């Protein structure tokens, strides 16, 4: 982890129990070098954010982890196994929701299970449970266009949860959601991380959001992207959701991240 040059980093990095390892990944789109020799560990059961200005390769990295894109070089390990394509161990939540407009909420939520060949009654029972979990009970028969942006993303989240993968990949899931809904979502994320024993990889360009929800924040710098810092908030993670934004460490970290990113904002 030579690229890590951070005072905030605590002493136990590399041999932590990591669910996902990114090893020296590079990605070129033709002549555009999106990622260069990027390495990063994602501790099991925790939420790691990828934070960086837009265009710095966050989506690219997430899609490589998802197995939707091939890295130009380097490899991804999930529980020690090399990624060669999409797998049942990972589920994706898309920035633009990626719902099927012709399918009802329940079919959308159950779609991952449908693709896995789970029988209709069984998958609808599972979908029903997660629809309830994300607070969309009563909307099972609605179509996506009848829902607000926030509700659509809840459908996307329920779909990802219902396949019960170990790793959840979220690509700026709340960027198309209004502010109030976004805050509610962020609180729900904390609860999800606490209750579901999953590893979350969360892409965002919002500093406050990253600090609020993360156990670990990886700061990516613009193209060709690499990890410039890893920050692990410690003190406020176990406080009440209402008090996080008042905690001195929260405010310090937000300031510190802004200080390192401001050079890259034109």
């Amino acid at each position, binding site marked *: 982890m030579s690229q890590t040059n951070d005072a905030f980093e605590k002493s136990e990095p590399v041999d932590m129990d990591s669910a996902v390892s990114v090893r020296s990944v590079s990605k070129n789109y033709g002549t555009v070098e999106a990622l260069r020799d990027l390495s990063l560990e994602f501790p099991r059961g925790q939420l790691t954010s990828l934070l960086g200005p837009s265009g710095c390769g966050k989506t690219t990295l997430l*899609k490589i982890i*998802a*197995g*939707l894109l091939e890295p130009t070089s380097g490899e991804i390990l999930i529980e020690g196994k090399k990624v060669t394509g*999409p*797998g*049942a161990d*990972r*589920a*994706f939540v*898309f920035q*633009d*929701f*990626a*719902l*099927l*407009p*012709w*399918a*009802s909420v329940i079919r959308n939520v159950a*779609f*991952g299970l*449908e*693709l*896995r060949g789970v029988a209709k009654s069984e998958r609808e029972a599972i979908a029903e449970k997660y629809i309830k979990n994300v607070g969309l009970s009563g909307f099972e028969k609605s*179509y*996506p*266009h*009848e829902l607000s*942006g926030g509700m*659509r993303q809840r459908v996307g989240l329920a*779909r990802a949860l219902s*396949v019960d993968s170990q790793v959840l990949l979220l690509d700026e899931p709340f960027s*198309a959601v209004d502010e109030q809904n976004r805050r509610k979502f962020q609180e729900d994320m904390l609860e999800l991380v606490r209750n579901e024993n999953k590893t979350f990889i969360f892409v965002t360009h919002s500093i406050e959001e990253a600090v609020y929800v993360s156990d670990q924040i990886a700061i990516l710098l613009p193209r060709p992207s690499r990890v410039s810092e890893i920050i692990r908030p410690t003190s406020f993670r176990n406080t009440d959701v209402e008090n996080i934004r008042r905690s001195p460490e929260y405010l310090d970290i937000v300031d510190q991240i802004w200080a390192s990113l401001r050079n890259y904002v034109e």
Partner: protein
Amino acid sequence: MINRPLALKLLSAFIVFGAWEIAGRVPVSFAFPTFIESMQALFRLTIEGTIFTAYAETLKPLVVGVSISAFFGIGMGLWVGLSQRFEWLFSPIFIVMQAAPLAALIPILVMAYGIGLTSKVFVVCIMAMPVIVLNTASAVRNTPASIKDMGKSFLATDRDIVLKIVIPAASPVIFSGLRLGISAGFIGAILSELKITPTGVGDIITYSRSIADYPSMYAAIFSIIVLAVLFLNLLERIEDFLFEGNNRGYVSD
């Protein structure tokens, strides 16, 4: 109470038929009958059964041609749309077919396939197929990349992606291609009966024109239009039934 769209449709039909009636009474041309005369002729043709025997004849090339065009047109469109390699090869063929002057091709078809059903089916296909292929291919190519990625990330096979994502996503444009193709097929069926051999409805048109029975001629033309409209409405129902969420627009932010 009648709902608003239906009331508007009735109103527009009333205006069109009214204008027809007036134009017939002026008269615009001695060969232009009034609406009422035409309807009387249609009634007579129906009672005599002439119209039914005529349609039994006309529907043959139409149904066969439209079925072939729909089946192979959608199939070919899917294939062209899904493969990156063949697009440049096939699209131009159908663009040329769409633009070709059909009347000039008919003698060639007759030389090759005679004056029977085959030539007529060909005419229907030439009219109907290109727009179906081109619409299907472009709809398939324009499937939003993010829902395809979604499918892949949830472990869809290539077959799942085509059947559960690409085709439903493309269906509004495929159906609009089908509608255009079927309308063109109707034109093709009648055209073939006028240009190759007068049979069926084309025969009623040719024959009644030759004996100056213009009301019957217009009755036949009118019946084709009604049939085409009914058929297109049926197609719309099928589409609504199959892809309910689609006709209320795409989700976009």
